[in-house]
């Protein structure tokens, strides 16, 4: 009896856990449904009212694969041969011949490039130091240097891609490294292929731009704030040319304000201090200026979109001086209070210097105080400009920008002549490494080629979802009916377990943050079949035992015990193939293998433990389950 109780408790715990993990998905589904029924202003109001909850649900819901929601998948490969060519010095005809040979040899088979490359030189008894490193370096040292260089190139390519995808504003992008030199980029919902190709391929643009004087940038922010409250016209302190279309201005202003705050504008009746502030400073409510007066604004992660939209509006753009541009930090930053903020940097529109003058960058640690630093070297002409720029801007901040994303904005401490700079003030070695990657992206592009590109239109995705769920539903209903007809109440118990089984599979997937794909749905359909098999095995066995004249309870108990080995061995072998599939399959097949494996484990539990518990409870209550 105690054993029985433990089983019940475990079952209930699993059910609660599964529902807990699926809850965001259910909520997300409900929000979408509500939203699709509303139109125009109502839908905006609804979205505003539930903004945070919806975002939360969206983040935690079960992810759908590209085949179900449409989008693009691109596999990029870093062109290592190009890289080897780029970093070599003293390139001569012999070198070019070898490069050509390596290219043709590695194109047809999967041999790794660097060993092939190095062996070529060995075969011709040419020392690698002729082209790489310094004269004293031996071949093995240069080989390891080249290998290091190539793995860094892949990191660099990933960083460039990630940065651009973030700037482009795709929701839930996935960027992964696969193997040594491949990058898988998945962009849900993106349709424009040409735009994405450009996004992923062009060389990264690295710039150094001075930050705008904090006093001026604060005034600009203030004027935006005042514009939104409608006080700007009477205010003469801001040196901004006001639009000529004054008549339309209030309407536009109201639009802009709605853009920012949505329809949740604070009612006039609310006289609390916060409400007062929200009414008087709608801009500063979302954009918090730096308290030390260094010029940047802090925007909570969830508010970024609305501020971006606001800043894009032409009437707001007019308030921003022509030589100033607001650029976002490339990464969201976490502060002490665990809050995540984006930083908005006011920078000058023209760059002081572009990244092609950088010859090297290296993350390192300051031997004196153990803090992370980055050393940066520039070419001689770059160094000349750099000396002039730093000399003229001591005490000011220079922003390091890649593809419009600000990565760092260090203060110029002194005039730097000679081209060797040291950037300090990094919080962690990881931050220093990121900056190294970014700085190098300007100097050494990481050449990438597309080796696979797939795009699925959203309508095909919707059709697939509908088809997948229809087939699951029909299969489920037919099986449920069959089981009851064939096994009577024992069949009903099995159906009950089947329901739990699907709940568990989805719950486990949600808790892993796994992605549901079309092959994944096929895996669930198959699991339903396997679950039925387990129940059939048990029920057939119980029938056999009853024929031998056992009591019902004894027949059920022996039936479960005897059927167990067959069920277990069958599930283990299927599970083994699942593992193999997961190891060798492409991402689609992996989705199938994952749901299959989860399903098999859930099966063992629901078909053996849950059904047995239910039957025991039925018998304790004096009800005798029938096996048909």
């Amino acid at each position: 009896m105690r054993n029985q109780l433990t089983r019940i408790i475990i079952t209930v715990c699993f059910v609660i856990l599964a529902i807990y993990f699926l809850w965001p998905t259910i909520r997300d589904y409900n929000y979408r449904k509500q939203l699709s029924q509303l139109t125009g202003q109502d839908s905006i109001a609804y979205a505003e009212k539930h903004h945070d909850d919806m975002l939360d649900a969206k983040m935690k819901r079960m992810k759908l694969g590209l085949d179900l929601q449409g989008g693009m998948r691109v596999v990029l490969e870093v062109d290592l041969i190009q890289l080897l060519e780029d970093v070599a010095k003293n390139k001569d005809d012999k070198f070019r011949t070898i490069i050509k040979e390596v290219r043709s040899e590695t194109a047809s088979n999967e041999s790794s490039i660097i060993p092939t490359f190095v062996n070529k030189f060995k075969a011709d008894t040419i020392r690698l130091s002729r082209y790489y490193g310094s004269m004293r370096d031996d071949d093995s040292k240069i080989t390891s240097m080249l290998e290091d260089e190539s793995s860094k190139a892949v990191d660099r390519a990933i960083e460039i891609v990630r940065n651009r995808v973030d700037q482009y504003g795709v929701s839930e992008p996935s960027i992964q490294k696969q193997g040594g030199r491949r990058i898988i980029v998945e962009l849900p919902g993106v349709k424009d292929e040409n735009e994405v190709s450009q996004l992923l391929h062009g060389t990264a643009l690295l710039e150094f731009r001075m930050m705008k004087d904090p006093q001026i940038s604060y005034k600009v922010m203030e004027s935006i704030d005042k514009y939104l409250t409608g006080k700007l016209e009477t205010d003469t302190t801001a040196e901004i040319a006001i639009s000529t279309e004054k008549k339309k201005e209030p309407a536009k202003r109201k639009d802009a304000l709605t853009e920012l705050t949505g329809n949740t504008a604070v009612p006039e009746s609310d006289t609390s201090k916060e409400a007062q502030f929200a009414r008087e400073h709608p801009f500063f409510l979302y954009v918090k200026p730096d308290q030390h007066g260094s010029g940047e604004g802090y925007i909570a992660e969830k508010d970024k979109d609305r501020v971006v939209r606001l800043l894009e509006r032409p009437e707001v753009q007019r308030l921003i001086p022509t030589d100033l541009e607001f650029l976002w930090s490339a990464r969201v930053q976490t502060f002490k209070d665990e809050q995540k903020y984006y930083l908005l940097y006011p920078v000058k529109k023209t760059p002081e210097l572009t990244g092609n003058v950088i010859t090297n960058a290296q993350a390192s640690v300051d031997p004196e105080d153990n803090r992370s630093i980055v050393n940066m070297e520039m070419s001689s002409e770059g160094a000349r400009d750099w000396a002039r720029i730093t000399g003229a801007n001591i005490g000011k901040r220079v922003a390091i920008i890649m593809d419009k994303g600000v990565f760092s904005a260090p203060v110029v401490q002194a005039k730097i002549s000679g081209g060797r700079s040291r950037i300090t003030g990094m919080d962690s070695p990881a931050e220093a490494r990121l900056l190294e990657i970014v700085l190098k992206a300007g100097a050494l592009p990481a050449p990438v080629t597309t080796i696979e590109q797939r795009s699925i239109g959203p309508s095909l995705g919707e059709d697939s979802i509908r088809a997948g769920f229809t087939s699951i539903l029909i299969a489920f209903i037919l099986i449920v009916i069959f089981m009851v007809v064939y096994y009577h109440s024992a069949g009903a118990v099995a159906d009950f377990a089947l329901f739990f089984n699907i709940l568990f599979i989805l719950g486990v997937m949600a808790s892993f943050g796994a992605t549901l794909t079309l092959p994944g749905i096929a895996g669930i359909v198959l699991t339903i079949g396997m679950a039925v098999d387990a129940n059939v095995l048990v029920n057939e066995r119980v029938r056999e035992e009853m024929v031998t004249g056992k009591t019902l309870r004894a027949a059920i108990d022996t039936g479960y015990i005897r059927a167990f080995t067959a069920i277990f061995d069958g599930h283990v072998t299927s599970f083994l193939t699942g593992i193999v599939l997961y190891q060798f399959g492409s991402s689609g097949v992996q989705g199938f293998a994952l749901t299959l494996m989860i399903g098999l484990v859930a099966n063992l539990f629901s078909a053996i433990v849950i059904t047995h518990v239910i039957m025991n409870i039925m018998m304790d209550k004096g009800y005798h389950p029938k096996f048909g």
Partner: protein
Amino acid sequence: MRLFKKTNIDFIGKRFFWYIVSTIMVLIGLVSIIFRGISYGIDFQGGTEMIVAFSPNVDIGNVRIVLDKVGLGKSEIKSYGKESTLLIRTSEQAEGTTIGTKIRNALTDGFPGNNIQTLREDKIGPRIGKELRTNALLAVLWALGAILVYIGLRFKFRYGLGATISIFHDVLTTFGFLSIMNGLIPGLNLEITQEVIAAFLTLIGVSVNDTVVIFDRIRENEKVHRSMSLGDLMNKSLNETLSRTIITSGTIFLVLVILLIFGGEVNRGFAFTMAFGIVTGTYSSIYVASAFVLDWTRYQNRKKAVTA
């Protein structure tokens, strides 16, 4: 409800007849694979594949004429599910998605006024296809190896061997069947895609599960009826598990038929392959796996008798 009364069928006695049937099936399959060949999907072939929806419908011949103008006349063009939807595939390679753009532009120019939508576009580089083929083959071999070891350990080595051979039989006949059926049913594309490979691995799983259930019963009966000959033991076990075998295979088959009809074009190849695989998988558990174990054991015993 009961579909089967206690049966007493002599399965094992008729095995030599079924050996011949199996051999013929495998041979026909092999002949078809050699002469008709197997068509690989875009994943294994490399190139560009597009699924394009037209409105109103267009004639495939006209599409070919249009594509011929841009030098892609040799592309494979066939209907995909619906009549209005076409699959266009070429093994032509070019940097990025230039081929796809070329096809799209050619279609918009060639069918002015037609509402043309790209439902899917896949571009696979030349090396990927080869890699995927290798990986698929490796997956099948590893799965076979894992099953051989697991069943060899849980039962006896010869049972593991029997299970592996029966899976081999299933994979071969199914492959052959796909080769024969490809192109025979209009609208049903039976190319070797990632999904079909998944179907093969699943069918391995299901077939071995079926074999394991029977072996499990033989193992159990062996302990109880010590004096019974292996052939009788097998017949007894097969009869005892028969109703389970039919019901389970039947339900899975049913699920697959539903997937075939309602599961959408993408799942169709998977469902079709699996549905055939279930039939051969169920059959081979009896007439390949069990029969092999029986004849292998008899052969061993005879050898022992001769040497003794």
